[in-house]
């Protein structure tokens, strides 16, 4: 059975690009365009992992991360962001994310990260 991943990004382009990568890797993909929709969809879908943008209109990514972890503390969340500040990485780590990948997302990097995440490891580039 295919693993199911929720892609959360306010950019339709970013969602399309990430969906393409994930579907090519054999995952089932669902999309959410903001934090509220992400929480609703996760509550219904119980996805195996979430790929989460940080800089979004409305609910900021860190807040979404916190709420997702409240719903399921063991949920693997991969943060996809162009914000490469060390402090952002620290915030994301402290928030309980499993991995962080720079945008634009590279397919090979994401595949390697997800392989680690499924083993219960963390990945930070």
């Amino acid at each position, binding site marked *: 059975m295919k693993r199911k991943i929720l892609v959360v990004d*306010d*950019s339709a382009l970013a969602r*399309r690009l990430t969906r393409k990568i994930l579907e090519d890797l054999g995952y089932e993909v669902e999309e959410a365009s903001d934090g509220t929709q992400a929480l609703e969809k996760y509550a219904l879908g119980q996805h195996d992992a979430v790929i989460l943008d940080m800089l979004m209109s409305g609910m900021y990514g860190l807040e979404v991360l916190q709420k997702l972890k409240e719903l399921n503390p063991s949920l693997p969340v991969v943060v996809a962001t*162009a914000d490469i500040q060390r402090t952002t990485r620290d915030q994301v780590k402290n928030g309980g994310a499993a991995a962080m990948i720079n945008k634009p997302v590279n397919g090979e990097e994401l595949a390697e990260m997800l392989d680690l995440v499924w083993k219960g490891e963390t990945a930070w580039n």
Partner: protein
Amino acid sequence: MELSPSQKDALTELINIGYARAAAALSDLTGHRITLQVPEVAIHTIPEITRKLLTVVHGEVASVNQVFSGPITGNAILLLDREAALLLNRLLTDRPAASGFDGAAREVITEVGNIVLNACLGAFGNLLKVQVSFTVPALQIESVQNVLHTLIIEEQPLEYALIIHTCFQLRASDVSGYLVIILGVTSLSTLLAELKKWEDRELK
């Protein structure tokens, strides 16, 4: 001229990436965390640009203006209000008492602008695979109207321009600034075409 929703979305995503790189450069320079806000991307007529900017910055500003050219040409501007520019100068130098725009301060602010603007536009160039050349950055200390008046005179044939403006803030200090990119209609069309090519390459 209006952007379609998908064009606006793609442009905003591109800007987000460049903007985040610029913020990281500024964070490295200052040692402070930069708080990011979602950039606003819109097309305005030239006179509207002044009105729009006056809603976010007032009075005397320090502006670092860098003209870029190549397949896409335009102006990239880092706008800081007077106090923000001086505080940035104090953060980056060991002159805590510096209070005016002397030669050393102007040099520091210009270099900050250079690094931030290059980080942003360099990210666009890399992503879209277009070569962008930069002029030497120019610092002006004057009113927002005057900053833009200079651009408008230089860009007189333009009727519309793309304006991307966004605020960044140094956490634990009051420095906030605005990044503005102004493109003419021709360059905007080229940029949109290059964006579409990027998307097509990635989705192939």
